[in-house]
């Protein structure tokens, strides 16, 4: 009898617990506070200490309530876990209102997410609720954000038109001459000097300078190549990667006079061979060391900045403690990937599109608010200070700039992840007309014929792309880090890679890209 009761109790407990789980599943709705007035905003951060976030959040809410009449809940996500966390939020249907996204952000790529229905179509609401932000950008810029003709995200304003930037220590620049002429931007443009030529000349000078190199051995980290494949290869030769990851095969020669919409394999071009040869030369001539153990910041003299960006010298001065001069190579180009490389999108679940857009518009128009959310509070995160710098006419003039307080507790350091970087307060050695200079580059840049097109592959081609990418990434990393075989030549590296790509579905990738691009161009 007693045993029978015990069994019944066990069975009842099992049935009840299963019932509770099933009931909970049946009652399941999206989580989050979609009903209240608070906008839930996922902020992308550089990964630093954000102990002071609550203090800043309080100030942000005071400001937003006063100006817009609602509240905002900021959730900070460091870049290292951003893609995984966002991927989980989307796949689990978790409620939030808006988040950072970008064309090439792994785990949260803008075009793919938009086409999958994870982002809200804001084509009609954008001009109504964020008029300042909408009107400030040209229609060709908004074209890049369109997926099937609709806008699903707000473009964060920054430098869109991209080409290669190389910064060289001013002391080196002063004495450097190429073909008997001094190194100036005008001479680079006039004589068509490539970055290969300029870097080689600068490094040769450093190698022979006994004050820097002992017995012709260049110190570690004197030249920093970094992960600059995109810039050195794609941007330098004006290839448009058609909205896919930059290593994926299949690009167009965007500025070519003819045939500029033909999809080609960029790894089977003379330009790629040139890039391979450049990387190999850097190691073989002893400018870069294969046995580099650590990154010695203060040794830097020549730095690949990636994209040419006025004001990058300021960041280099802060990092290295030395004044640099930056030079531009190639033609600035507007492509879908370049324009949509930093965006803010509203989740498809959001019930507060109007509030989200108003908040973004406030960040766009209100410099004080932008800096509060992106940098923090004056006195806690930064202080105003003054100094002197040369203006365009070469005259020294006084200017004011902000200096971060070391050990501050709101280290976001991703001010480009908000609606406009042009609201950022001036930093040391940044030119007074920085914003005008960047806007000028954006406005005068060449526009790719495929602007607005982002290739979304079929499942089989998506797999081919990944397979090819695996092979390509190995080669690129070997070239940038100097770990390629000593028996390799530029020809053998290019030939081997192309054989592997052919075996991994290259022709299918190119054919599908071409057909989708053609369809886009017809519809356009």
């Amino acid at each position, binding site marked *: 009898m007693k045993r029978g009761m015990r069994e019944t109790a066990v069975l009842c407990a099992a049935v009840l617990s299963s019932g509770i789980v099933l009931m909970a599943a049946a009652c399941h709705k999206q989580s989050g506070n979609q009903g209240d007035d608070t906008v839930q905003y996922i902020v992308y951060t550089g990964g630093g200490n954000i102990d002071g976030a609550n203090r800043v959040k309080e100030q942000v809410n005071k400001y937003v309530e006063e100006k817009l009449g609602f509240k905002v809940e900021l959730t*900070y996500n460091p870049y290292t876990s951003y893609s995984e966390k966002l991927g989980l939020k989307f796949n*689990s249907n978790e409620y939030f209102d808006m988040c950072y996204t970008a064309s090439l952000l792994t785990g949260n790529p803008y075009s793919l997410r938009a086409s999958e229905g994870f982002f809200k179509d804001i084509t009609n609401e954008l001009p109504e609720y964020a008029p300042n932000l909408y009107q400030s950008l040209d229609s060709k810029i908004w074209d890049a954000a369109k997926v099937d003709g609709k806008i699903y995200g707000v473009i964060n304003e920054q430098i869109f038109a991209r080409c290669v930037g190389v910064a060289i220590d001013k002391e080196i620049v002063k004495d450097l001459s190429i073909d008997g002429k001094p190194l100036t931007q005008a001479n680079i443009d006039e004589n068509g000097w490539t970055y290969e030529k300029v870097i080689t000349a600068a490094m040769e000078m450093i190698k022979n300078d006994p004050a820097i190199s002992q017995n012709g051995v260049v110190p570690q980290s004197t030249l920093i190549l970094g992960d600059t494949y995109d810039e050195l290869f794609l941007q330098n030769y004006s290839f448009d990667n058609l909205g896919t990851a930059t290593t994926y095969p299949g690009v167009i020669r965007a500025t070519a006079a003819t045939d500029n919409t033909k999809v080609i394999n960029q790894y089977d071009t003379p330009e790629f061979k040139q890039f391979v040869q450049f990387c190999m030369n850097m190691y073989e001539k002893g400018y870069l060391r294969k*046995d580099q153990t*650590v990154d010695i910041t203060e040794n830097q003299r020549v730095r690949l900045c990636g994209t040419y960006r006025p004001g990058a010298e300021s960041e280099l001065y802060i*990092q290295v403690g030395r004044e640099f001069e930056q030079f531009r190579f190639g033609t600035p180009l507007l492509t879908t990937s370049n324009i949509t490389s930093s965006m803010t999108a509203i989740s498809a679940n959001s019930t507060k599109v109007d509030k989200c857009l108003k908040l973004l518009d406030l960040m766009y128009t209100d410099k004080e608010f932008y800096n509060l959310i992106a940098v923090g509070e004056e006195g806690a995160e930064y202080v105003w200070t003054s100094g002197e710098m040369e203006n365009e006419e070469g005259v020294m003039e006084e200017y004011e700039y902000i200096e*971060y307080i070391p050990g501050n507790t709101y*280290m976001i350091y991703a001010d480009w992840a908000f609606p406009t970087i042009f609201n950022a307060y001036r930093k040391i050695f940044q030119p007074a007309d920085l914003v005008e200079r960047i806007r000028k580059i954006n406005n005068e840049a060449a526009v790719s014929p495929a602007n607005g097109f982002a290739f979304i592959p079929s499942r089989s081609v998506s797999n081919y792309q990944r397979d090819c990418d695996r092979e390509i990434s190995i080669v690129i990393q070997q070239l940038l880090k100097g770990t390629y075989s000593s028996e390799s030549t530029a020809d053998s590296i290019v030939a081997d890679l192309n054989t592997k790509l052919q075996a991994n579905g290259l022709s299918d990738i190119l054919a599908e890209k071409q057909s989708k691009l053609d369809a886009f161009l017809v519809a356009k």
Partner: protein
Amino acid sequence: MKKNRKIGRSLVFNVFNVLWMTLFAIYCLIPIVIMLSASFSKDEALQQYGYSIVARGFNFQAYSVVFMNVIPLLRAYGVSFVVTGGGTLLNVFLTAMIAYPLSKPHFRYKSHITVLLLITMLFSPGMVPTYILITQYLKWKNTFAVMIIPQIGTTFYIILLRTFFKEIPAEIGESAKIDGCSAFREFLTINLPLSLPALATCSILVALGYWNDWGTAYLYVDDNRMWNVQMLMINLVQEVELWKKNFGLLAGTASSDSVVMATCVLGTLPILGVFMALQKYIVSGMTVGAVKG
């Protein structure tokens, strides 16, 4: 003659065994020694000679960089100690409670429950369903619960403890029952104290799991005030890069490599101490589970 040959063979075996184990121990120790040495090495020395067994240009610069923001570090240690300490106690106690009835021969459903438990060892529900369960049904995001509860009831430890409980003579429990002892009291006052070696083994392994767990905080903790040491360490490495970029702080002082190594040392040392103090229980406990399970 035969006896001498036997002794000779045994000697060769012992020499070979000791030699092999010594080499293996050195192989395991070298990475730790290199980590320690690099954390105390000077920037220029790392640049010139790379990593070495003995620190070159011995200094504490990397540690001073790590301790620059001492409050988040202390708080993270606090979170880790609460999760590891509280989690281990709760985990081991509840695991023992599950294992105990399964060790009783008269418990009718023990084989069914054991099969169900074994299924959890072979199949996992996947990341997204687990995330939905934890964040949307249980609402455990940014709580201690998410860092402690999902790890409770690991099948391996249940089987280990079940095996140990089986070894306790049933007569002890029966005589206690005759004296009016309840089942729970029998478990609490007789079986648990008798199973201390197995409980100690479980505790160490569970504590190691809690201390080294960064994945849970990575996925389920958005609030940086709830970060454990491992999560803080990951972030600190990124933070050092930010310091370099935005302040040039490390120029001429510590390199980011020595700072990374210093963070590893700080993340490893506490649990390494606990492990070394209690390691004998791991061996004895594992033997119980392996030989008689």
